[in-house]
């Protein structure tokens, strides 16, 4: 953590990123207190109002207050992206560790990864959505799968390397159980790359979900979400640009912030990025 803060000092933009994410979390937690209006309050008379007094960010085609929807949307966005992260990371670590650690499973694992890679996540999204209708869980699953394969691959690769390490061999010799080795000795070495991967997952899953929303396969329209706001707005690009721009900027800023933070985290955690001095 200390190192992370140190790194931050050297990257001014990253600080901005952290700050923005902080604000976001506050918005999400205190949404009902912050949002001036009901994010679902339909008002046919005041449709498509440009930003101004009464509606700082204007209103959308339902006459709903965009700022209020942004505030509540931050909840949806955070929850869903977090869902993707948790799903992909937990499962990814589990599968990757086991597949990488037990030789017998390696081949099988590679086959499965092949298949998963070959299986467009979009199709999965479509299928889930058509079977169960649009919903949060479906979106998380659909997007999560893609990142699951990536995380798994990383963990798998690292486990393969790590278990060849001398000290692991040593513990083996000392008769440590597989479970113990995996959890006590291999897993800790995975944390930093996985954390890094997680931040990027968070960032890019947000974009992926926006794309799903654009295709009408994402979150149900009765939940305020930035992705839906953005895709609804895309029709109004010319008529009511703020409908597109405002959620757009929030998405870009969030993703950007996460990427920047992730970048710092990686440079700081991944030893190969540390300044190392030859010869000393």
């Amino acid at each position, binding site marked *: 953590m200390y190192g992370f803060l140190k790194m931050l000092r050297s990257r001014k933009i990253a600080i901005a990123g952290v700050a923005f994410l902080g604000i976001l979390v506050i918005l999400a937690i205190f949404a009902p207190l912050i949002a001036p209006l009901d994010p679902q309050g339909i008002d046919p008379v005041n449709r498509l109002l440009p930003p101004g007094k009464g509606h700082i960010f204007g209103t959308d085609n339902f006459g709903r207050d965009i700022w209020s929807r942004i505030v509540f949307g931050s909840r949806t966005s955070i929850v869903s992206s977090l869902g993707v992260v948790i799903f992909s990371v937990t499962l990814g670590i589990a599968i990757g560790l086991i597949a990488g650690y037990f030789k017998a499973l390696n081949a099988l694992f590679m086959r499965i990864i*092949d298949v998963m890679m070959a*299986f*467009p996540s979009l199709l999965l999204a*479509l299928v889930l959505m*058509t079977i169960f209708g649009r919903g949060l869980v479906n979106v998380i699953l659909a997007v999560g799968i893609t990142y699951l394969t990536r995380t798994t691959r990383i963990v798998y690769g690292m486990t393969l390397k790590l278990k060849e390490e001398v000290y692991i061999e040593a513990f083996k010799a000392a008769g440590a159980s597989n479970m113990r080795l995996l959890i006590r000795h291999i897993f800790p070495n995975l944390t930093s790359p996985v954390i890094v991967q997680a931040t990027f997952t968070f960032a890019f899953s947000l974009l992926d979900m926006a794309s799903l929303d654009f295709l009408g396969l994402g979150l149900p329209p009765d939940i305020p979400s930035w992705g839906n706001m953005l895709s609804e707005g895309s029709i109004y690009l*010319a008529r009511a640009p703020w409908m597109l721009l405002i959620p757009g900027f929030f*998405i870009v800023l969030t*993703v950007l912030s996460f*990427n920047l933070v992730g970048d710092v985290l990686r440079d700081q955690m991944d030893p190969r990025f540390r300044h190392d001095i030859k010869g000393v």
Partner: protein
Amino acid sequence: MRLFLPLYMAEGKAFDGAQAMLKFILRRIVGILPSLFLVSILVFSFVHLIPGDPIQILLGDMATKAQVDAVRQEMGLDKPIWIQYGKWIGGVVTGNMGNSIFFGQPVLSVIGDRAETSILLALLTLVLILAIGIPVGYLSATHYGTRLDQTISGVSMGFASIPTFWLGLSLMTFFAVTLKLFPSSGFPSILKTGNWANIRYLILPAITLSAPNSALIIRLTRASMLDVFKEDYVRTARAKGLRESSVNILHVFRNSMNSLVSALGFTFAGLVSGTVVTETVFSLPGIGKLVVDSVLRRDYPVIQGIILCIALLYMAINLLVDIAYGWLDPRIRYN
């Protein structure tokens, strides 16, 4: 050029090298078949899980149940699923994927036509990615820690953070509508018309797609070069008195190419199959959009066909990447 020459092949080892490689390739191709089989079953059952009825879509809202059932029977869609699968897979091995329910055309020709768009678009994008990603990433790595490096990171991140369809729409409104430099949408076939000028239809989409992807390649080039920088042989190269540039290119970049190759491989595969948003925005007849439309129309044969092709593509690229590995790094043996 010598940078890319598989030296050990030029130098007497060609024979055994080539033989080992041949064996390896054969083994891998054999290995692919079960995966494909797995995919085919998966897809088939998957697709038939989806509620909804292609015939209803075909005949429309007003068609009565009786009429729909009649057509379904004629098309053999009323048979038990495993019989349908057998019939389908039987056709597939003989190179016949059946007809599209919606278009009534052979699946292969439908896919083939879309493949042209997707592959051309993917190639064009790949060129852009390489042209941008590698040089910039190289700069970023060779100027590690400097302001330049940080600016590059910031900017590339920025591009990676823009939702695709937003970028696409903006490019279209500016370059197509305002400046009228490019056509706004669509893509008349090049193969059919033989008119290469049609490639201009793909430029805006390619730019849209290359924005996020080249950002990733920049990051990767940087990362993997930094990885190599601290290797002892780089220090040796310097100690030899090589110019900084030749050290960076001949030793650092050359040795960091492995990770790039695999990344580019899968980027390409992704570009062929997963660009539905861009295709929708620019209304391109591509594979990605065909997948979505076919699912929405429940056009089973087409969906199955596409997924099988995509799977094949992925595995082929997987193989190519592995071959490239050995080609780039003599230490890797094919066994």
